[in-house]
């Protein structure tokens, strides 16, 4: 009987957490539509210019977007692991 109540306590706590999760700081980023949506102005508009940035290439050398001005640039975002 003690184990039964202990299991109920654990499951009940998880149920409360699952129901309450959207209102917690860790769950808010998943449940808040505003946070899930694109931030206006964070990236360029279609047909406009991207804000300048610098990222490392595959060899670790920094690449700045403005250095590629005048060239065609294909920018892709990929996961590093095939899940």
């Amino acid at each position, binding site marked *: 009987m003690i184990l*039964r109540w202990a*299991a*109920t306590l*654990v*499951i*009940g706590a*998880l*149920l409360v*957490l*699952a*129901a309450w*999760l*959207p209102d917690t700081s*860790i*769950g808010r*980023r*998943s*449940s808040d539509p505003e946070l*899930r949506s694109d931030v206006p102005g964070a990236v360029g508009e279609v047909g406009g210019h991207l804000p300048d940035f610098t990222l490392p290439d595959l060899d670790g050398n920094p690449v700045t977007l403005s250095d590629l001005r005048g060239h065609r640039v294909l920018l892709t975002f990929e996961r590093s692991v*095939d*899940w």
Partner: protein
Amino acid sequence: MQTSLAYRVLCGAIGIAFVAFGVAAFASFFAYHAPDSHLAIPTGPTGFYFVAFTGCAMVGWGGSLLASIRDAATSRRVGSVTAFALVLMAVVRMAGWVVGDYYAWVGDLLRGEAILFLLLALALVWLRPRPTGEPAASAPRAAGASSVGAGS
């Protein structure tokens, strides 16, 4: 008796669902490798390997639940470990919902599944039948415990 019936119905429903899901997951591995296949699960060959592995395990798990219906009292631990595994599955889904990587694919389904699994685990815990012969075996101990309690 009604509790036992509800427990058996619950084990049967979960068992049938697990077997059906397991067969679908098993079949999805072969469907993925068929030419021009377009499956709903966004994963690659490694992912489908584990999907098929999970499917085989779920067929065995669901089959165990269905087999436990025949004599629920002596097979009650099948329900206990199922409840434990359902809690683990709920924890994984809650973590997956928080991480947010799966939101584009399944939305809030993960949180709903977590709540469903936790409720099923709770039902398995409370509907679990007493072990066969427990009243007779525990009666002398209970009587002894009460006499000690009365004396102290």
